[in-house]
């Protein structure tokens, strides 16, 4: 067994058994970490694989959360309906946002996705039915096929872990498919792909919308974990936070954003216990990673063979 396989097994074993030995506080902490890992994964699909630096993913995260809240107001509380609906709502929002944003490139794309997310933020702040800028409490977690099992934090942990695992495997297939190959080509040289006969726009838009679905699912999960929705889900710092996870962990890999989410959130947790000014410690640390570990933390791991984004 290689070190690589071994480390993966330890990693998976740790997360599979965590609720069995951890207390509620830590189970819930790691539940949130897994949900943010899902958000980071979805963002990496767009940024790392698609080459589109979206600074507006909070909009889709928030859409998922608000969809969950809206459905609960209408008495629809089953996860089997609500979570797919949250993902679907995020896709519906992402379609026009992506369609318009993808008319631009580079820095303009960053700015326009940010602008759309800010619009969504102010829109949510004005929704009086959902408590305006204060947000709204949810009564209970979603049921699964009518059963209230997610009330238990350990079961909810597994629901989040399962969602992340499913999303991870989905992304794995996606990035190794013909679609993924084409996406990698567009990321590297869009003009060249066009001269090969590819209309690049629909591929990028599709990637953007698929990614939004996963972000929406993450939003629904987070609404369930905290039993609270508010415009803070859609705040630009949320988008920035997710971007930091992706860059810290390793752009254009699937394990990278998951690793980035775990490390960043744990560091925040630990440092904030020592000092209020944990940002001052974390900031330079991030800069060091960006400067000295180009492939992010995941890039420091022993790699299989040649590593590049299209075959992680």
């Amino acid at each position, binding site marked *: 067994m290689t070190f690589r396989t071994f480390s993966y097994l330890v990693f998976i074993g740790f997360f599979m058994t965590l609720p069995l030995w951890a207390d509620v506080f830590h189970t819930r902490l790691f539940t949130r970490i897994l949900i943010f890992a899902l958000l980071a994964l979805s963002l990496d699909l767009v940024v790392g694989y698609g080459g589109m630096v979206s600074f507006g993913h909070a909009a889709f995260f928030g859409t998922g959360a608000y969809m969950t809240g809206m459905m609960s107001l209408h008495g629809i509380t089953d996860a089997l309906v609500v979570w797919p609906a949250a993902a679907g709502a995020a896709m519906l929002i992402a379609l026009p946002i992506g369609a318009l944003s993808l008319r631009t490139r580079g820095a303009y794309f960053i700015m326009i996705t940010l602008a759309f997310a800010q619009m969504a933020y102010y829109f949510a702040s004005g929704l009086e039915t959902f408590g305006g800028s204060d947000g709204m409490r949810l009564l209970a977690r979603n049921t699964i096929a009518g059963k209230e099992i997610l009330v238990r934090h350990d079961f909810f942990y597994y629901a989040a872990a399962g969602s992340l695992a499913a999303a991870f495997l989905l992304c794995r297939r996606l990035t*190794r498919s013909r679609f993924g190959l084409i996406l990698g*080509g567009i990321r590297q040289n869009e003009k060249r792909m066009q001269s*090969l006969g590819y209309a690049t726009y629909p591929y990028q838009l599709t990637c953007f919308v698929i990614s939004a679905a996963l972000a929406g699912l993450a939003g629904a999960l987070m609404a369930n974990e905290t039993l609270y929705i508010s415009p803070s889900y859609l705040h630009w710092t949320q988008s920035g936070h997710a971007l930091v996870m992706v860059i810290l962990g390793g752009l254009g890999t699937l394990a990278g954003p998951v690793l980035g989410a775990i490390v960043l959130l744990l560091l925040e947790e630990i440092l904030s216990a020592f000092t209020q000014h944990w940002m001052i410690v974390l900031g330079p640390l991030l800069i060091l990673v960006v400067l000295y570990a180009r492939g992010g933390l995941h890039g420091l791991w022993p790699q299989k063979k040649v590593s590049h984004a299209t075959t992680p």
Partner: protein
Amino acid sequence: MPPLLEVRQLVKRFGAMTVTASVDLTIERGEIHAVIGPNGAGKTTLMSQIAGEIKPDEGTILFEEADITSLAAHARAALGIARMFQITRVFPASTVLENVMLAHLSTRGHGFRFWKNVHTDRDSRSAAISFLQRVGLESRQETPAGTLSHGEQRQLEVAMVLAGDPKVLLLDEPTAGMGPEETARMVALLSGIKGQQSLLLVEHDMQTVYQLADRVTVMVYGRTLASGTVEEIRRNEAVREAYLGDEKGQEERDA
């Protein structure tokens, strides 16, 4: 039989400078048509207009008798107009094989296939490998294209354009920046497809042009100075004076 591709009275201006001045040009099926001319004559710009990356100000471009003047680059590529760039533009982070697969799959239906692993797909793989064999790169399949030598990247480019199964190939200085060995290899490769593939070739090296071309068009300052068979161009006085001066001297010395 009408020509495969026809350029009529094409005009392109960059500000006050006319880079393409009423250029006419035809490419017959199966012929190699070379465009020569000094630096800045407008050869690349002409090629970009045929490929659809630059919009001409006036004139028409016909492909298989259809007007394609206002068609986007990717639509022209889909019709079978493939371009190889003067500057190498492979996908550096992808493997050599993936590069060719991308080119090959562009002719094989849409790319919205999300599930099947494309890297283990036998058909796409073996097709891509056959093109790598044609250019002599089959042993480099799994190498990231960005780490190939310059000459190898040019070979990869040829494999990629061939993999697109084009009706006409636009090659902009395929031997630029190559050593003598690599150049010889590229010329041999192009001789190999001569007669089977319609080709527009921009090339500085006269020996290469004489070896490969069926017809030659000479451009100077955006205008066509002359156009004809290799023999006609060799004999053309205006061309000899304007462009082949050195070579004329060379021939006289040889004689």
